[in-house]
């Protein structure tokens, strides 16, 4: 396993709304490694997107990070030209400060679920890319002193013309036809798939170490979805960046990820390699999720299994294991009382379920 890039430790995010408090993320722990893809799966509203935003320290209002840390192993060139790794707790940074802004977009980029409205309608595709490029590639040195040595080599001058050339090149790389013309196209002149390609181009234009993809293909047609996924894989091979791929689509995640975490109601219930998750799932929730995928070759008369019960009201979460009201292996007196702890069930395979906890 390669070096860690982002370690999320016991992250807790709350939303204070008029009706009460929502524990959107309650103790999420996982690691994204350099050059690898981590899949995050779970039903909508389980805290996947909030976790992703916490990594960029931009949890939307009225959300608030109330605990945990997000350690970013930041690789930067040092004075003598070699790379040093510095560990930053992202949650300690000022959310609109200089440092987090360098990380956002420059080192950790993000693409979103709704390509239709993720581009500012009054600017061209090219303008979006050049904005990011000029921001992260030619940022002038402002601070003098200890930071100077670190930053001095990272910056080179990018002229407007150069930035535009980069934009055209990026559009070509993400497979936009006629990039030299389309660079001046406005968002409404592009199709949904093209817009998501532009979003990817913006994200990759600054050569980030990590890409957070928050359900990037949910809003797209199936054929376009496949193209975008292929594109992301190709680009990952070229650039060796890490990807945190958030989705509720198990089929998609199986294609993309090496490692998977499963989230339920703000909690991570299982984490393992993609093979283990699909062939040896441990947590009853993971199993239920897998059983609910329609599969070719299953008998016609066989019904799809759906998870019994409903997602509980976020203001009144169940006690003990959050999944117990819907769990087929519910053990009364145990699951509704005791909060499960992390248990190792295999090589790099962890689960939070009382079935596997030794007394």
């Amino acid at each position: 396993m390669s070096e860690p890039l982002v370690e999320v430790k016991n992250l807790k995010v709350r939303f204070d709304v008029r009706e009460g408090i929502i524990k959107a993320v309650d103790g999420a722990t996982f690691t994204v490694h350099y050059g690898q893809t981590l899949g995050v799966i779970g039903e909508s509203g389980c805290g996947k997107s909030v976790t992703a935003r916490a990594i960029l320290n931009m949890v939307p209002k009225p959300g608030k990070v109330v605990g945990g840390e997000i350690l970013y192993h930041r690789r930067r060139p040092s004075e003598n030209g070699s790379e040093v790794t510095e560990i930053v707790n992202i949650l300690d940074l000022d959310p609109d400060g200089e440092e987090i802004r360098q990380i956002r977009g420059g080192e950790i980029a993000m693409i979103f679920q709704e390509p239709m409205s993720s581009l500012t309608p009054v600017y061209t595709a090219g303008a979006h890319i050049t904005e990011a490029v000029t921001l992260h590639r030619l940022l002038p040195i402002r601070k003098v002193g200890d930071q100077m040595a670190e930053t001095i080599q990272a910056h080179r001058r990018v002229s407007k013309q150069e930035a535009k050339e980069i934009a055209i090149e990026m559009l070509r790389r993400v497979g936009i036809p006629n990039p030299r013309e389309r660079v001046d196209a406005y968002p409404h002149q592009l199709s949904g798939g093209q817009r998501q390609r532009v979003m990817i181009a913006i994200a990759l234009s600054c050569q980030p170490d990590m890409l957070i993809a928050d359900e990037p293909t949910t809003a797209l047609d199936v054929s376009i979805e496949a193209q975008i996924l292929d594109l992301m894989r190709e680009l990952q091979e070229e650039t060796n960046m890490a990807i945190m791929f958030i989705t509720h689509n198990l089929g998609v995640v199986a294609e993309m990820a090496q490692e998977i975490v499963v989230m339920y109601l703000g909690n991570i219930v299982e984490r393992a390699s993609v093979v283990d998750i699909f062939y040896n799932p441990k947590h009853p929730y993971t199993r239920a999720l897998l059983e609910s995928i329609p599969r070719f070759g299953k008998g016609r008369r066989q019904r799809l299994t759906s998870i019994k019960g409903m997602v509980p009201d976020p203001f009144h979460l169940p006690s003990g294991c959050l999944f117990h009201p819907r769990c087929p292996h519910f053990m009364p007196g145990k699951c509704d009382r005791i909060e499960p702890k992390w248990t190792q069930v295999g090589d790099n395979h962890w689960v939070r379920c009382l079935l596997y906890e030794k007394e």
Partner: protein
Amino acid sequence: MLAYLARRITYALIMVVLVSFVGFLIIDLPPGDFLTQKLAELQSRGDRSAELRIAEYRARYGLDKPLLTRYWIWATHFITGDFGESFQYERPVSDLLSQRLMMTAVLAIATLAITWLVAIPIGVYSAVHQYSLGDQIFTTISFIGLGMPGFLLALIILFFAAVILKQDIGGLFSRQYQDAPWSIGKVIDLLKHLWIPALIGSVTGAAGLIRIMRGNLLDTLGQPFVEAARARGLPNRTVVWKHAVRVAINPLIVILGSEALPSIIGGNALVAMVLNLPTTGPLFVQALQTQDMYLAGTGLVFYTIFLLIGNLLADLALAWADPRIRLG
């Protein structure tokens, strides 16, 4: 785009014709009586040429001809810049209007500048800091401002100035500069007087703009592209102004067009009446009060034409600002 432009201009031209006809009807309804009155008045003054002059008017405007002919005579005169004669001032309407146009425009531009310079930043602040103390204060103030019509506010301010400060704040010039030629001193004197009517005139407009700007920006700030811009590492200020405000302000361009241009020639007639300003507004109101119909009708037609032009320009500006409309 060209087709759109052509359609809009044709449409505006048809409107101008229709509107001018209504303006003419308003002129045409009472002035027959006025001429009779005028004749009596001139005769009582012992004006020997009275009969002659009245007859001249009748001939010039074809007052004994059918309605449509009269309209045609009036309209052709209007196009050539002959708007008829003010019976009360006994001077051509065009003279009276042009004399006051300059001050009206100065005042209107000052009012507009204050309105927008105050309202946009406050609206943006309120939206960005939604539910903060500042937002609540500004929201309350703008709510009161909306219910505070300019002329009543002007009366209240006049009351405070006259009764409590014992000062006269009406007019645009101090007495010594009233008829003086232009000089630095006169300009300074003008600025000293100008800000009060400009401020009063901007209250209602600014209050409305604050509310619209706040609402639009709140909607826009919730859009994914704002979050995407932030995730690109842009500083908050850039995210708000370059992305969110830039999109949220588009609908306000329409308001600028439909209010700015008409107000430049019309000004706020009611505020101008209270503060006794030398603008076209009071002229128009007095003309209506004394049934000086050529002056009044010309005023109405002018306001309307400017409103139409304003709307046209607003549409064009919106198309220029918003690629979704321009390239549709």
